[in-house]
């Protein structure tokens, strides 16, 4: 056991750090600092820089375009991304459907989809949840009927993140309504431009348009777009959820979030006019949160080490999801507490060149919307109640 990085690892860290410093798009940095909403091209710009360098998919095997890093290198890489406060690479292609395709897909599917996921040419979205199938995902009702070499798909998906930009979606559909819930499901890749696909916005508490409803009406999907066997889609679904959960811990991002919290608490003052970070109440809460984060970090590192030794992400990733999301939410609570009165104004970005400017200090603008929005983290990706069920069943054998 050794916590210190080797000279090679330190050199790798320096290489990553200087690459980010030299290549992070300055326009993107400007928009982030101003709290502006990011458009599709903004979100893709950093993805493309990483793709050109071959670093966009750290966990992918080398043969499919991954960099061939070990767990320590991947850890260092994600630390450095968070340290530099880069925007996250969207998970839907890289972390979700990509691994499903290279694990379960045909050679044709791999050749067709993986390069375009890496390059960012295809934007992916996830068609899992339905209005009646949330935590109970296996009760999904979207129906795919085989007609010759096509499926005809009908149904409704919801909470589809950033589907408004998506070129492709991966969908769980029911191909055998007579089978037990988990046995009649298939995993389909659907071109979002196919006639019959309609994307409708859902506006969330902070006023954001992040998620959507996706309606599917007689959507014709070639059978060759099914991944893995018919009625075996649940295998892909479970695999994907476990992969989704490891990234969901968000340790490096939370470290960055705590740094930002501290920076805010150095500027904001308490009732006596002292910096909030000098206030014993407040700083103890920050210290407590840092303990939680260190515990999560080393739990994740142990999981990563297990993965490196050939044990795939298993039920223990549920622990990372629960604790990781609790910490992410706690950070947003403390930021909102820190900004005091200026949590209240509803933030509106004004167009460039406008004489108007938002109310209150910049660090307060998104404090409340972010707090509201981050309640989603204990709900999505399998709610934290479901994660506890998984641990109870799979780890404790209850």
């Amino acid at each position: 056991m050794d916590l210190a990085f080797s000279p090679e690892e330190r050199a790798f860290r320096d290489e990553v750090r200087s690459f980010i410093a030299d290549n992070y798009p300055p326009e993107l940095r400007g928009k982030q600092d101003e709290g502006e909403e990011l458009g599709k091209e903004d979100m893709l710009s950093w993805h493309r820089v990483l793709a050109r360098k071959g670093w966009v998919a750290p966990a992918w095997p080398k043969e499919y375009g991954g960099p061939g890093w070990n767990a320590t290198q991947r850890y260092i890489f994600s630390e450095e991304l968070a340290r530099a406060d880069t925007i996250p690479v969207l998970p839907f292609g890289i972390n979700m459907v990509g691994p499903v395709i290279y694990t379960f897909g045909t050679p044709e599917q791999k050749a067709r989809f993986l390069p375009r996921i890496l390059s960012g040419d295809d934007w992916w979205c996830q068609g899992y949840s339905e209005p009646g199938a949330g935590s109970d995902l296996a009760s999904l009702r979207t129906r795919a009927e085989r007609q010759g070499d096509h499926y005809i798909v009908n149904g409704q998906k919801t909470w589809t993140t950033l589907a408004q930009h998506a070129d492709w979606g991966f969908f769980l559909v029911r191909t055998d309504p007579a089978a037990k819930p988990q046995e009649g499901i298939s995993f389909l890749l659907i071109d979002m431009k196919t006639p019959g696909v309609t994307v409708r916005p859902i506006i969330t508490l902070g006023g954001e348009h992040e998620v959507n409803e996706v309606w599917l009406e007689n959507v014709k999907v070639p059978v060759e777009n099914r991944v893995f066997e018919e009625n075996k889609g649940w295998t892909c679904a479970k695999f994907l959820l476990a992969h989704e959960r490891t990234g969901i811990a968000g340790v490096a991002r939370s470290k960055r979030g705590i740094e930002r919290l501290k920076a805010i608490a150095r500027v904001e003052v308490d009732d006596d006019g002292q910096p909030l970070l000098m206030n014993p109440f407040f700083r103890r809460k920050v210290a407590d949160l840092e303990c939680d984060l260190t515990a999560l970090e080393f739990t994740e590192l142990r999981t990563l080490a297990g993965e490196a030794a050939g044990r795939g992400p298993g039920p223990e990733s549920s622990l990372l999801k629960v604790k990781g999301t609790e910490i992410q939410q706690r950070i947003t609570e403390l930021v909102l507490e820190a900004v005091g009165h200026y949590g209240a104004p509803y933030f509106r970005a004004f167009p460039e060149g406008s004489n108007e400017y938002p109310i209150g200090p910049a660090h307060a603008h998104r404090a409340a919307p972010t707090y509201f929005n981050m309640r989603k983290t204990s709900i999505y990706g399998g709610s934290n109640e479901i994660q506890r069920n998984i641990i109870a069943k799979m780890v404790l054998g209850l």
Partner: protein
Amino acid sequence: MDFSFTETQGMLRDSLARYLRERYDFDTRQKMLALEGGRDPAVWKALAEELGILGAGFPEAHGGLGGGPVEHMVIMEELGRAIAVEPYLDTCIVGGGALLAAGGDHAETLIPAIIAGEVIIGFAWAEARSRYNPARIATRASADGSGWTLDGDKAVVIAGPYATHYLVTARTAGNPGDRDGVSLFLVGAGTAGISRRDYPTVDGWMASELHFERANVGPHALLGREGKALPLVEELIDRATAATCAEAAGTMRRLHELTLDYARQRVQFGQPISRFQVIQHRLVDMLMEVEQAVSMTYQATLRLDLPAAERARAVSQAKAKIAKGARFLGQAAIQTHGGIGITNELAAGHYFKRLTMLESRFGDQDHHLARLEALMLAEAA
């Protein structure tokens, strides 16, 4: 000991509750928020004329109904249930309280106008660097031959855009944080030298940033004694805090009901999620917070007329407890709703947003615990 309401108090609650149920349902509220100006002024008019409740807490000598803190509590609970964006606290409790304390011509003319719904008062006590300490203010007031002149900035003045008057704290002496030197002014909103930036808040209210630049507010704007207003300001804030507790208790009660309804009808794994023990226990924990919020609200409300230290302890205990409970209950409500709780479509999310803002209004949990600690140390010394 008696926790029952009088017949008059019961009628007050029933008539307001009926009005809000019939004319202020969630969809109607959302439509009002979308109107130019962010509200429907007809509601305030109706509270004044149709229901005649704006005088509930004023003495009969001023044309009021002769009630006090309990009447305020009843009204605030009902407004909280409906997450109504009506400035009763600001106008009738804080503004009215200041006028009653000051007496004189202001009280004679303005209290009847408040009761009639013609005067709305915004409470300008907070500043960008004051946090929740009403003494840590930098806005200055000085007197010359023509009266008082105000200079400075006030933060997040609720109802600022449509208030007819502002109740403003300003320094006539000393430095931010000093207990001495704080004075209280009542100024017309249209006074030259006052400029405003208006905006909506995250929970659907309208508020303003106020900028005073050589604002000559006249010789009669001072309420109470020059430089000695802090005890009165603290009392007003304690009354406002107790009212905020009542509002939060109403909001919590309704959000709990909404969550219970949702859990009963939402089916997953072949049964309503209310059948799952983890959900049942959460709903029970939420109910316990509702009941404690109500208890704490009663406790604080009934002690508002005690000497300052006892009043402060009662109010800060209530707000510290309710701030914590409101956060728990709001988060638990959203978690139980799942994704739909985070959308703007359902009422639950809007109750959650309002509760989040109520948590820190007139001081968050830390502020009130620190105040309680200071009282404890003062007592031990």
